[in-house]
């Protein structure tokens, strides 16, 4: 099993740092560039969300966790949560669209909305993770922390 766990400061540049670090770890562990790139993308998207939507009024950082066991990869971030922000409800709404339709349909629908509506931004990251990697994305609140977790099976092509 390969694991990485740390508390990261909620600075934007740290999302890119985690993407690079996670990609390097996965590349070292499984030797597949595509799997490493994908893992880096997940680390980046989830970290960016934590930085954007976490409640940083009391300082602190977000917990970041990577677990690679066999061909299964888990990336999880947990950030301080302000219930009045509505961020958990928005997250649940996004996850419902993925669950009710399919990850592909949810992603395509959002791309269409972004394209069709002027000023429409964001809310692509989780759909992207679910669609590009067929990842299972879940979210829960516990002890004033909002955790978002992505789990997927590595598709490793030994010829790469």
């Amino acid at each position: 099993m390969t694991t990485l766990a740390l508390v990261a400061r909620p600075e934007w540049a740290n999302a890119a740092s985690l993407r690079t670090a996670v990609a390097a770890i996965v590349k070292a562990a499984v030797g597949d560039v595509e799997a490493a790139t994908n893992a880096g993308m997940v680390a980046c998207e989830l970290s960016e969300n934590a930085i954007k939507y976490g409640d940083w009024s009391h300082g602190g950082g977000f917990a970041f966790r990577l677990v690679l066991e066999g061909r299964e990869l888990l990336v999880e971030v947990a950030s301080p949560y302000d219930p009045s922000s509505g961020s958990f409800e928005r997250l649940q709404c996004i996850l419902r669209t993925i669950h009710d339709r399919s990850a592909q349909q949810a992603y395509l629908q959002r791309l269409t909305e972004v394209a069709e509506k002027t000023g429409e931004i964001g809310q692509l990251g989780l759909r992207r993770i679910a669609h590009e990697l067929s990842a299972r994305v879940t979210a829960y609140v516990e002890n004033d922390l909002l955790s978002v977790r992505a789990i997927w099976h590595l598709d490793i092509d030994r010829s790469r």
Partner: protein
Amino acid sequence: MQNKTVQLGDLEIEVGNTNTVRLVFRGKSNHREPDAVLRPLFHEVIKKASTTGTGVELHFEKLEFFNSSTITSVIHFIKELRSRHIATQVTYDATHKWQKVFFDALGMLQKADGFLQITPVTS
């Protein structure tokens, strides 16, 4: 519009002018608000293509990563080009699965009028 290279953090965009306006994206786009920094460049490209009647080439083959905020900016740009009937040729590297998945999805913006063409290339 002059030939130039625009640097936005880890993202580099090479702008060329020949028969078309050509943008080559390289590196990684991690910006928090990419629209704020990309919009002036995209606006310049649209203005140039509109006034001269030239097409636009967007090359993503050398792009290593973009976050979902950048995806939003790129989609808005391509949509704007389409709505102004500017012939746009998008190319990407189909050997990178993440590029293939994204640009396959972007194919939904293509219409029968042929103003937008999305073409895979293999490195």
